């Protein structure tokens, strides 16, 4: 059951890694998220160095977002132009992110930054999601519906220059917000190993005001390419991609995701969201605990060839 990872230089139980890949794939299929936010913490709890975990699991997201993108393309639910704008920002962001990642690794702060950004992002997004889904469930029980989000509302975003027409999204907005959004998500992909769907999707709906039917497909399109770019950049810049580990994660993941999609289709939306929110909050709490708990040994050692 033991398998030696040639780049990580440690041996793991391949069945456990396969199961982690499948479990995260299952959840990502069920909830329609990339699952990167679960994968990095799980791998780190198992004992994979954080740097290897972040760099390697981007390929897991590439694989699981591929089938999603293909389906959405067939349904014509991808705004290519918007996707390309986000992608341009995303690639710039991941270049920047990989550079920051390397810098932090040299300073010895990468673990702290990865954990702390997870706590902040997952804590706040999980909290918001939990709050919202509880409200929706309560409202559904009492029979009142929450007010819908108004479309075509004018905000500060419409005042920005360099406007462009996005026909599929029925939008005429500046290219600056999609570029910046893509950039931010690209940085997250490189530093945290997440696809960033959990930020991209709300931002597309509430900030860019894209119609919901193209949001999921477009974000998956962007995630597919940005995670691929991040894999390539990590491989060339810090050599933290372990292809044997990646293979196990992807193999487990692509099978798990298919079953997750089938189960997810049978659950109700608001319950699904509440479950996801609980999961997200639980991961954040566990990571926070790791940051504040007094370590067994306050010294840590990194060995490398001189």
């Amino acid at each position: 059951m033991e398998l030696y990872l040639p780049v990580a230089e440690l041996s793991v139980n391949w069945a456990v890694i396969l199961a982690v890949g499948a479990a995260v794939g299952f959840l990502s299929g069920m909830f329609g998220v990339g699952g990167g936010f679960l994968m990095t913490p799980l791998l780190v709890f198992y004992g994979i160095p954080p740097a290897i975990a972040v760099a390697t699991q981007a390929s897991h997201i590439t694989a699981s977002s591929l089938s999603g993108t293909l389906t959405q393309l067939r349904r014509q639910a991808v705004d290519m132009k918007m996707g390309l704008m986000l992608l341009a920002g995303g690639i710039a962001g991941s270049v920047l992110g990989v550079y920051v990642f390397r810098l932090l690794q040299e300073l010895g702060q990468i673990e702290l930054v990865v954990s702390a950004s997870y706590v902040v992002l997952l804590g706040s997004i999980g909290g918001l999601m939990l709050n919202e889904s509880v409200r929706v469930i309560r409202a559904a029980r009492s029979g009142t519906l929450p007010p819908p989000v108004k479309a075509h509302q004018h905000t500060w975003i419409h005042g920005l220059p360099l406007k462009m027409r996005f026909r599929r999204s029925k939008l005429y907005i500046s290219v600056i917000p999609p570029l910046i959004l893509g950039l931010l998500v690209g940085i997250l992909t490189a530093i945290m190993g997440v696809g960033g769907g959990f930020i991209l999707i709300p931002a597309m709906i509430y900030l860019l005001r894209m119609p919901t039917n193209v949001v999921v497909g477009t974000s998956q399109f962007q995630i597919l390419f940005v995670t691929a770019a991040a894999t390539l950049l990590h491989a060339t810049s810090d050599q933290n991609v372990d292809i044997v580990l990646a293979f196990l994660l992807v193999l487990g993941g692509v099978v798990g995701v298919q079953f997750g999609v089938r189960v997810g289709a049978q659950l109700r939306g608001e319950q699904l969201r509440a479950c996801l929110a609980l999961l997200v909050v639980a991961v954040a709490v566990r990571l926070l605990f790791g940051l504040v708990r007094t370590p067994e040994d306050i010294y840590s050692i990194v060995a490398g060839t001189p």
Partner: protein
Amino acid sequence: MSWVRRIALLAALIFAAAPAAADDLVSGLSTDLIQITSNFTGADIVLFGAIEPSEEAGPARDQDLVVVIRGPDLEMTVRRKARVLGVWVNSEQIAFTGLPGYYFLASTRPLDDIASPATLERFRLGTINLESPTRAKTDPDEANAFRAAAIRDRKREHLYWESPTGIEFLSRTLFRARIPVPAAVPPGEYRAEVYLFQGGTVVSAQSSPLFIDKSGFERRVYNYAYQASLAYGFIAIFMAIALGWLSSLVFRQR
């Protein structure tokens, strides 16, 4: 210190210290090459040897043996955490060069009973005598605390191991030491050294090489990741895309 210098020093010390008729020491390892294969979970090797008493002197008393296996030197960065606003953050760090990636020591008795601290230091025997220069300008006490932490950590990972009773005598002259090699050993050139002490001084010593290397596939992957990293990255992406595409094909037909 380079191996050449170490061995030269060793030879010089032995010639100076040894009485005219020293006992002869022969030793060997059960293997001189450990291959890290895909199912590598560590290895157990055995060092065996014999003390052949010189003809004039006859079998000697109060003899002790020390066996050392030393791996390639690595650069070790030791970091110390401090609490900042309730969160544990890495604050100070010191990089040491010259600490081995693996260090195993077995002896017939505790080292302190075998020879004086000065002798042990001269032959660099025991983890407390490992040479570890640092470029950092910290005060010596501080550097020692970091160094001790590095050694403690390596012992926890079973990469450093001291076994004061690890040498077994099978007969009056024949001895054996079991060496547990954990899965996390760094590949490289190792050296097995056997020291024969008599009356607190080294009278004979032997050194033999041991190689630990990744086997075919593991080494190719590792080399590829570093030497052809662009192609390696593309292969990783291609693998992910191929598997993702394959699975969506397989599952759509069902």
